[in-house]
């Protein structure tokens, strides 16, 4: 049996990280866990981008004492991912601030409960009776 090359192992890791994050993002119910899943998916994407510049047996793109040690890996994906990581943490903080706001307005961070309370609020604003409105036929709603 021959082992797969190193790049295939790394690409598998990156893709499965992305898939795990994406699955958590579509299936999760807790808003904080959605933020965590977003961070995991982002990590996978960053690894995928840096891997696109990887060459086996190459050196880091930094010159020591001014001499070129040999073939070097591609510096451009590394520079782009550098900024992407910092942007990612800013986005994460913004999402958590929104979660804090949602928790204060609705008292929950569960998507299911949140959606039910949102519907109740909308129906109350539209002047419908609160009990029956969610199961009533659509034709009875005001246009």
């Amino acid at each position, binding site marked *: 049996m021959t082992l797969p*090359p190193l*790049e*295939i192992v790394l*690409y*598998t890791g990156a*893709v*499965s990280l*992305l*898939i795990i994050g*994406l*699955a958590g993002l*579509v*299936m999760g119910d807790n808003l904080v866990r959605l933020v965590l899943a977003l961070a995991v998916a982002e990590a996978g994407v960053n690894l995928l981008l840096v891997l*696109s*510049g*990887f*060459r*086996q047996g190459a050196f*880091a*793109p*930094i*010159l*020591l*004492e*001014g001499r070129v040690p040999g073939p*070097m890996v*591609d*510096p*451009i994906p*590394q*520079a*782009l991912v*550098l*900024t992407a*990581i*910092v*942007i990612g*943490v*800013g*986005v994460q*903080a*913004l999402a*958590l*601030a*929104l979660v*804090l*706001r949602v*928790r*204060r307005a609705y008292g929950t961070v569960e998507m299911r409960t949140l959606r039910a309370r949102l519907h109740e609020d909308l129906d109350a604003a539209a002047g419908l009776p609160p009990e029956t409105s969610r199961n009533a036929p659509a034709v009875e709603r005001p246009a």
Partner: protein
Amino acid sequence: MRNFTSLLFAGGLGFFLLVLAADLPVGAAPMVAGEGILGQGPEAVGAANLVTAVVLAYRGIDTLGELSILFAAAAGVGLILSGMRRRADQRPDPEGGFILLAAADLLFPLLVIVGLYIVLHGHLTPGGGFQGGVILAAAFFLPLLGRPGDSLNHAVVNWVEGLAGGAFVLIGLWALAVKGDFLAPMLGKGALGSLFSAGTLPLLYIAVGLKVGAEIAGLMSTLQETEAAEP
């Protein structure tokens, strides 16, 4: 049913991406622009760290865009949480124990020195404004973890942030006026590998470090001052 569809979607996307990855030229990645930068970067820019050369010289305008995105995120957090500040009658978190307070006081100068080292040597060794800025923010936030009643001076933080951002744009405009390219390297290159080399790149990285550090410290301080939800 919804879970099944979601899993099917995620698995299908994973299979598709893996099939794409299996067709990649494994072992020798094609480098179109990278070869040129690796070849002529050290002479053209003068930075030993070629990632720094890409971040600040070749793609400097992208870094400016990244800084503005981070600024927008920090401003958004401040705006969203502005109505949720802890009231005076609410008790903050309890103060930390002796070990945490002593460690915070002892570590503060060390963390500041490490952060400044990482920022200043950004063009020679791995590191730079982003990493050093994060460490500076951690240095200023660690005492707040020990004493949650205190708070950062937000006016000073905003001034540092604005001045650093203005300095970045001003250096870029200066290069535009003299050389005709925004953020073109200025001030001579110096000897490759010494601290005073690579022209304006260390100055730009100091501006980036101060701006990132101020933004992240302000962001964490805002979260710290937010009122706690009743359990």
